[in-house]
């Protein structure tokens, strides 16, 4: 802000961004040049209450397509191309890798692997045998006889990214209101309004609501015909972070599991993120023994080097999701709600930002994102 003249600031429209999770931060970084951005954060700036803090940050559009629509896969593939450019705008480097991912199944789960393959909505994968598995990931359990290599998948370091975003925003002088809990109040028959102690939202030209599950109560109060369908819900996930210097995995491994995909994602400096469970519950408790056992036995079964790994953290949280598990950009006047990214926050964030920029320019209808997924954006009236 210091480098700008007062006149420049006067003509830049004002934008409030509610929520300083992944979407809030990325939008703020993307908008701070051309707009006066103020970020409202219920946390202390550490993002610990956001779903993004826990996620494994897999960028795996094809693997995810086994359980999501083709449109989400296409948007994910587009986002994967956009990540390097986005990361280059940050003041600190962030671990980003595009070495593909490996999908493995034990003998008794080969049926699941076959099903997984048949559900993929693209064909950029290779079937590999035990020798090929050993060649590309020499350390994995020799009992794996078959797998899939998805060469175009990527991943990044979620916590490194959240920190780098924070640093970039700080360096640019973006106003960041911490411990600022925002609630939406909607008097009957009137336009939505926001409330936050000590702040006035009417001064903003645009409000971007990126509060994730923090917006759940508001969504429930929306006057929709079929209430449950308009609601946000939380889908519980549990994640383990390990320090495993003896493990040699160089790319994420997805292990076939009867209930949900389990990833073992190698980050920098011997750190691995193993996750995540996916339970239809807004349970806010700490992780359960059963989930921890599932995740730990999964990683141990893939690579024996995890035996002496140090457990850095076992954490739980809830992903914000709409009933179709697909994100929405809901526009009502000058209020834009970006929510419901479910397990696809990192997969889709850059294209969500791209679409928000189009919205501000008024070019959203002609954007590539709209062409891929017309239902991403919902406008009132």
């Amino acid at each position, binding site marked *: 802000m210091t480098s700008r003249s007062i006149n420049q600031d006067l003509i830049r429209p004002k934008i409030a961004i509610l929520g300083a999770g992944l979407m809030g931060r990325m939008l703020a970084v993307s908008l701070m040049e051309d707009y006066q951005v103020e970020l409202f954060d219920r946390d202390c700036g550490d993002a610990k209450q956001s779903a993004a803090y826990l996620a494994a940050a897999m960028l795996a559009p094809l693997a995810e397509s086994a359980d999501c629509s083709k449109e989400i896969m296409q948007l994910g593939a587009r986002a994967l191309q956009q990540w390097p450019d986005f990361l280059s705008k940050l003041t600190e480097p962030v671990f980003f890798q595009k070495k593909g991912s490996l999908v493995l199944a034990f003998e008794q789960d080969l049926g699941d692997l076959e099903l997984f393959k048949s559900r993929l909505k693209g064909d950029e994968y290779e079937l590999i045998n035990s020798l090929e598995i050993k060649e590309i990931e020499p350390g994995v359990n020799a009992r794996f006889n078959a797998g899939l290599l998805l060469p175009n998948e990527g991943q990044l370091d979620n916590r490194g990214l959240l920190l780098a975003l924070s640093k970039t925003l700080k360096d640019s002088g973006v106003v960041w209101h911490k411990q600022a809990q925002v609630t939406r109040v909607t008097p009957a028959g009137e336009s939505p309004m926001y409330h936050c102690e000590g702040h006035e939202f009417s001064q903003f030209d645009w409000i971007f609501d990126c509060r994730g599950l923090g917006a759940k109560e508001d969504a429930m109060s929306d006057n929709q015909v079929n209430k449950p369908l308009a609601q946000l819900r*939380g889908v519980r996930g549990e994640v383990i972070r390990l320090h495993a210097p003896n493990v040699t995995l160089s790319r994420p491994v997805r292990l076939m599991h009867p209930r949900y995909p389990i990833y073992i994602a190698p980050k920098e400096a011997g750190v691995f993120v193993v996750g995540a469970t996916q*339970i239809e519950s807004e349970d*806010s408790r700490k992780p359960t023994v059963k989930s921890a056992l599932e995740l730990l036995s999964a990683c141990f079964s893939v690579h024996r080097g995890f035996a002496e790994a140090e457990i850095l953290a076992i954490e739980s949280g809830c992903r914000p999701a709409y009933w179709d598990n697909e994100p929405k950009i809901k526009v009502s006047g000058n209020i834009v709600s970006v929510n419901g990214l479910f397990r696809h926050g990192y997969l889709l964030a850059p294209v969500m930002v791209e679409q928000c920029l189009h919205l501000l320019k008024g070019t959203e209808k002609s954007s590539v994102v709209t062409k891929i997924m017309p239902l991403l954006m919902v406008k009132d009236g």
Partner: protein
Amino acid sequence: MNSSLNIYGTPLTSRLFIGSALYASPKIMLDSIQASGAEVVTLSLSRQNPEANGGQAFWDYIKSLGLHLLPNTAGCHSVKDAVNMALMSRELFETDWIKLELVGDDYNLQPDPIALVKATETLIHQGFKVLPYCTDDLVIARHLVDLGCEVLMPWGAPIGTGKGILNPYALQAFRDRFPETTIVVDSGIGLPSHATQALEMGVDAVLLNTAVAKANNPVLMAQSFAKAIEAGRGAYLAGPMAERNTASPSTPTIDSPFWHQS
């Protein structure tokens, strides 16, 4: 044998009971359930922290369908766990129906027959209408019926295997030995033809989940199951022909010219 289907006095039109787990999204689940025409939906509290209503949002989706809810005790390994979960389910879903599942073997999720009988007795005393998930063991089934079960749910194959009816002889004997009891084949159904086979055998209904939820197009698979079940029931009611060991021409040949006969 029941000519019309009812569960503890509640009449039903559809002979397909459907599960609510494993779908890619609640939307796909709701669309699939509707496409199946099922009137009974099973749901589980397992791992959802029901004490704090952890699954409320998900349960609301299922409730929005307005169908009969059949809570289950999936994942329970002991009588105590199953009874507790049944009590919690009754309170949350306001139904005294309970699909009683008690795992006796983690490898194939085979029900524990001893614990099943004990839990059934306890739950019936507490006013539940128990739908026990059992094997095709006739003796255990007799105990369950003697305790007051009006519905039995024998497996076709282990849960989630999709292998179909592994022991048709045992299932037919099960049907024949309990002509007054409603028999619902639960678990192991992978294809619509498996469901047809069960209904052709005179089984009253089929309960399935994975076969629809894990299909590449769950809605289309749900529709296909609905048709298959209708076909199986129709075939059963129509009375199938008897099998023969020798060919028998379907067209009389006595008046055919000899050069047409070979």
